[in-house]
């Protein structure tokens, strides 16, 4: 049974990647906070959840993903419209000092927001979660081939969307 210290350990180890994943998935900071709290409250209430779990990160990502999907379902279509509207404003990236990098991050954040949620989740875990397709598949409860194909589709879309900016930056380098 995890004590307060165990919850603290879990938070310190996993809260940052969970935050980034949820923020990219929900595109809303308040929702991300609520979901993050929901996950840690659940872990505190049901300490047995982590018994026998080999990959804590993958397990927590799965919890986070399920919680985020439940939240989106609860909202319905009207709220989703609002969500799409705010998707353009939210950024999952840290502020950049370099103006070109700043523009690139802004465009990348918008392009990510335009991806379907399931593709966005895979891209995030592959690029910034540093997970393999097998780990992503286990975390999102999908076959590894599906994870790989979602990643390829999403990457093609991102490249198509950001190509002009990316090539311009390459030339400048």
């Amino acid at each position, binding site marked *: 049974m995890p004590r*307060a210290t165990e*919850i*603290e350990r879990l*938070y310190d180890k996993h*809260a*940052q990647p969970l*935050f*980034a994943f949820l*923020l990219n998935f929900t595109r809303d900071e308040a929702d991300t*906070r609520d979901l*993050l*709290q929901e996950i*840690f*409250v659940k*872990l*505190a*209430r*049901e300490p047995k959840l982590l018994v026998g779990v080999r990959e804590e990160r993958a397990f927590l990502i799965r919890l986070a993903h*399920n919680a985020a*999907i*439940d939240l989106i*379902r609860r909202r319905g279509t009207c709220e989703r419209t609002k969500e799409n509207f705010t998707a353009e404003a939210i*950024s*999952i*990236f*840290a502020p950049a000092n370099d103006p070109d*990098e700043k523009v*690139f*991050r802004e465009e*990348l954040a918008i392009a990510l927001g335009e991806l379907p949620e399931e593709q966005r989740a895979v891209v995030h875990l592959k*690029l*910034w979660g540093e997970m393999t397709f097998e780990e992503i598949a286990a975390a999102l409860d999908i076959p590894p081939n599906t994870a790989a194909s979602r990643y390829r589709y999403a*990457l093609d879309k*991102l*490249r198509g969307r950001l190509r002009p900016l*990316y090539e311009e930056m390459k030339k400048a380098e």
Partner: protein
Amino acid sequence: MMNDETENFEQKLRRQSLRQIPGEWRAEILAAAEGAKGCRHSSPVARHWLSTLNHQLSTFFWPHPKAWAGLAAVWIFIFALNFSMRDKTALVAEKVLPPSPEVVAELRQQKLLFAELIGSRDAGDADRSKSYVPRPRSERVEVLTA
């Protein structure tokens, strides 16, 4: 060439550093988690079971909610159609109930009258059934020559 370009693009994306989680969240979230430990629900097993069932159903129905709604509408239409057809069958059944004795007597009288009009010797023949009774060939010839 294409793979190199893809890899370069992937590397470029990977290098983008992500936002940091707000520091003040830690104390708030851990306090909420700590508070939740003390006030567990009375029946966590039942809650867990219901939550699992809800999740399973949601997962099952979620991918194509419109398709499921359409299917449900088709079934409702089929049930409605079936119900209305059943009503009509009942009405038809009521209509073909056996006639009353008065009607039977009236019909019999009309038959007799008709038999008299066409000059039949035995009005009772009209009531006889027209069932075919096979006879030997010899008898048939007798009938023809009679």
